[in-house]
């Protein structure tokens, strides 16, 4: 098996995990490595909750750094916070909270087999995420134009590091939701099979939740 | 065989007591466990595949026993550790302060009377000392095994060590926080002097006496001593190996290329200038990290070092 074959197979298996071919496919259906649907559903949810816990701990490190340096340099945090754009931040907060609502509706809708509604809601969620990203882009470039970069001072380092890592999560969320949406169009999900949408939704709620903490800590303390 | 370094501070006996205490506990535990391991292996060796064994699953008495005894031992060890640590971290009222600055890879000491030394710390015996330490660059750690004291040194805050030396002598000082290439050469000496000797060191008469005796040894020999005692050794090799700074081997008379493109031969004046103003003429390929030795070496000492370099062919 050549290098190219292996590479393409890796890419395929990541892009289409459900079509992935286990080593045993020559001998039997791969159903043997699957478990009963109830167990799979519960397990996927438990696994996702554990993963969300790790995400919280990841941001926990940033929050800890925030707490330590805010106690050490209160004035720097006051001034820095005042320089952030509260209006844009508020708009972004509203957008994210709204997108959390739409993704929740999507999860509910798939359980009732209302596929059209699912599509609409996922579209809205992804568009909200995109608007959030555009706003953030303007916010960042405005800061850069004023000569403020990561490393300008500790406050801005925290600001860029935490909103940057959060932004990364928004992008990952968009990709996840996009893949889900594509599969909805392919008719992969129904009220019997909605686990993926449910845990994708959980992930999006986390992205929202973290922002709800970041917003007041960074924008409103000034 | 000796397993503890010599003990030369008021803190050392307390540490040694803990080391002995835990060693005794450890040896007894190891002997007990080792003995039982071997004894069980011999006594209960498998005789046949049909050996009958009792299905014992637990024993509340034994389990309580080996929960309670280690707990008690742990509490005792903690308390000893705490008591002596408390003593160590409490600064005596009459402590004399000395400022310590660590830098890759040199210790420098500033005394209240304005004196400054490199890599050599002078303290009077039986006098509580408080070191106020900071670093110019990365983390370092001040460690004198004979005093059993150690403390990291960093750039953003002062850290402190208290000690009272109890025995006259010269003791090793190590850097114990990894700090790069010459970490293991960031060494120093602590000179514990009698009150009288310390006084004469302080007013400079000891220096003069030392100079007088130095006058009796050939300059190249003196230069060799200064090479290790003033910290040159950390960056400059004498065997041709490239280090943080250029090697001294074959240095004298060699053409030096500088970062600004100019060049010069390494003669007496160049070397003297490089010792006093190291940043002036930077040789290509080296970073400007050398501290100035202005005020730390007098002219005769610099001459001695130059003479020493001349011998390194």
């Amino acid at each position, binding site marked *: 098996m050549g290098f190219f074959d*292996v590479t393409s197979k890796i890419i395929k298996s990541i892009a289409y995990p459900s079509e992935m071919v286990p080593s045993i496919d020559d001998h039997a259906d791969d159903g043997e490595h699957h478990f009963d649907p109830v167990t799979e559903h519960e397990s996927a949810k438990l696994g996702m909750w554990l993963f969300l816990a790790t995400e919280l701990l990841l941001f926990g490190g940033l929050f800890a*750094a925030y707490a330590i340096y805010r106690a050490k340099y209160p004035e720097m945090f006051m001034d820095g916070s005042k320089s952030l754009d509260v209006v844009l931040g508020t708009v972004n907060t509203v957008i994210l909270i709204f997108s959390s609502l739409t993704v929740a509706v999507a999860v509910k809708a798939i359980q009732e087999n209302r596929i059209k509604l699912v599509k609409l809601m996922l579209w809205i969620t992804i568009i909200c995420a995109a608007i959030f990203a555009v706003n953030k882009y303007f916010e960042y470039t405005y800061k850069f134009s004023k000569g403020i970069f990561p490393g300008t001072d500790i406050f801005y380092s925290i600001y860029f590091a935490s909103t940057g890592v959060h932004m990364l999560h928004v992008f990952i969320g968009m990709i996840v939701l996009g893949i889900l949406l594509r599969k909805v169009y392919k008719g992969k999900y129904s009220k019997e099979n909605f686990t993926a949408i449910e845990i994708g939704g959980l992930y999006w709620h986390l992205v929202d939740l973290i922002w709800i903490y970041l917003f007041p800590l960074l924008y409103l303390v000034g | 065989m000796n397993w503890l*370094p010599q003990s030369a501070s008021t803190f050392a006996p307390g540490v040694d007591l*803990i080391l002995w205490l835990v060693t005794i*506990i450890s040896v007894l535990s190891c002997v007990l466990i080792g003995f039982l391991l071997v004894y*069980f292996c011999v006594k209960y060796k498998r005789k046949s595949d049909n050996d009958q064994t009792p299905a014992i*699953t637990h024993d509340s008495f034994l389990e309580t026993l080996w929960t309670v005894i280690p707990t008690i031992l742990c509490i005792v060890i903690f308390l000893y550790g705490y008591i002596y640590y408390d003593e160590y971290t409490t600064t005596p009222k009459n402590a004399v302060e000395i400022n310590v600055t660590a830098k890759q890879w040199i210790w420098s000491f500033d005394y209240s009377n304005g004196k400054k030394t490199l890599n050599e710390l002078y303290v009077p015996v039986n006098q509580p000392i408080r070191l106020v330490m900071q670093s110019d660059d990365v983390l370092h750690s001040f460690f004198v095994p004979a005093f059993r004291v150690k403390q990291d040194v960093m750039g953003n805050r002062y850290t402190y060590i208290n000690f009272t030396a109890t025995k006259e002598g010269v003791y090793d000082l190590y850097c114990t926080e990894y700090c790069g290439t010459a970490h293991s050469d960031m060494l120093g000496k602590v000179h514990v002097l009698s009150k009288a000797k310390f006084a004469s060191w302080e007013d400079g008469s000891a220096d003069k006496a030392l100079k007088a005796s130095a006058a009796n040894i050939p300059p190249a020999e003196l230069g060799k001593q200064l090479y290790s005692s003033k910290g040159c050794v950390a960056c400059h090799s004498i065997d041709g190996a490239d280090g943080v700074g250029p090697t001294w081997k074959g240095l004298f008379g060699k053409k030096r290329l500088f970062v600004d493109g100019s060049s010069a031969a390494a003669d007496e004046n160049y070397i003297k200038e490089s010792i006093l103003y190291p940043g002036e003429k930077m040789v290509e390929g080296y970073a400007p990290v050398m501290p100035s030795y202005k005020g730390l070496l007098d002219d005769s000492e610099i001459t001695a070092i130059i003479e020493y370099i001349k011998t390194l062919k």
Partner: protein
Amino acid sequence: MSEVNEKNYLENGEGFASWFFTVDHKRIGVMYLWAIAVFFIIAAIASFLVRFEHLTPGQTIVSADTYNVLFTLHGSMMVFLFIVPGVAASFGNFLIPLMIGAKDVIFPKLNLYSFWIYLAGAAIFMIALAGPADTGWTFYTPYSIETGANVILITLGIFVLGFSSILTGINFIVTMHKLRAPGMTWDRLPLFCWAAYATSLLQVLATPVVGITLLLLIGERYFGLGFFDPARGGDPVMFQHFFWFYSHPAVYIMILPAMGIISEIMPVFSRKPIFGYKAIAYASLAIALISFLVWGHHMFVSGQSKLVNIIFSVITYAVAVPTAIKVFNWLWTMHKGSIELSTAMLYSLAFIFLFTIGGLTGLFLGALAADVHLHDTYFVVAHMHYVMIGGTVFGFFAALHFWYPKMWGRMFDEFKAKIAFVLIFIGFNVVFFPQFIMGTLGMPRRYFNYAPEFQSLHQISTYGTWIIGAGFILMLWVLMRPLPGKAPGNPYRSVSLEWSMDSPPGTFNFDEIPTITEPVYNYGTKVEEES
């Protein structure tokens, strides 16, 4: 019997792709085993060079800078590529489903992805060797910010490896919650699974913190964020707090699976139930939980406040007690047993003894006043290696021998394996015992150069590496040359579930998911309660 299960997992599919794209937990476990074995060998070679360098003070074979690279390479590879993923990912993957009566882990594909992520992280790590870091495996700032070495790539590699660790942990936890066979109640769960459960919890809860720490370190080098750089108003001690908040629990990620292995082997070769099953199981969890609260004991001389140091010292002693309990429970499992000194049992007994030394020397370091003297000396190096080699690696070797028939379907030459054991045991002690003495005498660690008075001890230590090296080679040679003939399904007459099937197991482990009716380690004859 299903058609597929007629073939054992090793024969079911040939060639690279049948392994690289498998979702079979046993094959994935075996692939981890190969991978960690390779990194173990590379890292071990680095350590042999480090020791060889110490034959004489000053330069023996390499320069100071190369020496600094070598010990960084040794430490970071051993920690992040061998010992953290090590036992849990290899034997954990292979054994957990077999032990709980499941046909696979709950997320088989995720399991394969975890392995790929591990390989990706390892690959980045290897690329980073082009300009290898010289920071030590702890990456202390500000040195790691200022050094010219390739710190970014190596930390990125470790960051990626962290994902593998987290996903494996999640997989194992959910597997043990959801896939236990009927009747496999928590109090019948084999102790290896308990240990793996505790390990997984640590992996899931601690790894993200080192993830963000290393990410910030990368940001520090790219953007000059300044969190950990005193020159920019940051605090290097905060980096140490963040780093050890992961890396102390990581110590237990390394040792807990090995403890689980010992708990499996002791009953089999003593033919007795494990003594104090509940105590060992709960001790695993207790150790895991307390291990989150003791990170500060790595920082007693870092400039923490006195009160903080005292608190960390107290909690450190609290973690010593459950560890002591385990040691005595293993010991007492042998009492009145029928003991067979197989190679696996010898490694287990050596584990108990060496781990005891490792644990006891931890008592020195937990005592505040004594730690001031011993911190960052060879005493710490010796202590850590008694726990990591005497503990984890000996446990790992015990597992290699013990489950050898199950994994490969063949037997190995016990006699030669025992010779290898003797060499490794003696060599190990010759290497590391002198380091305790050097440490108390004040020999600092990470020292390229040293004072002449330490030379004889350094030389003894170096000679030891030659003995242990010979032992490693012999062990590898023995294990690579299995005896002819097929191994029986249950060569040790074990009552554990993983021995109830053929060796090696079929692809789907059990023809039918078993129902568990008996307690675990059900050896010996019931004795009447003393009345």
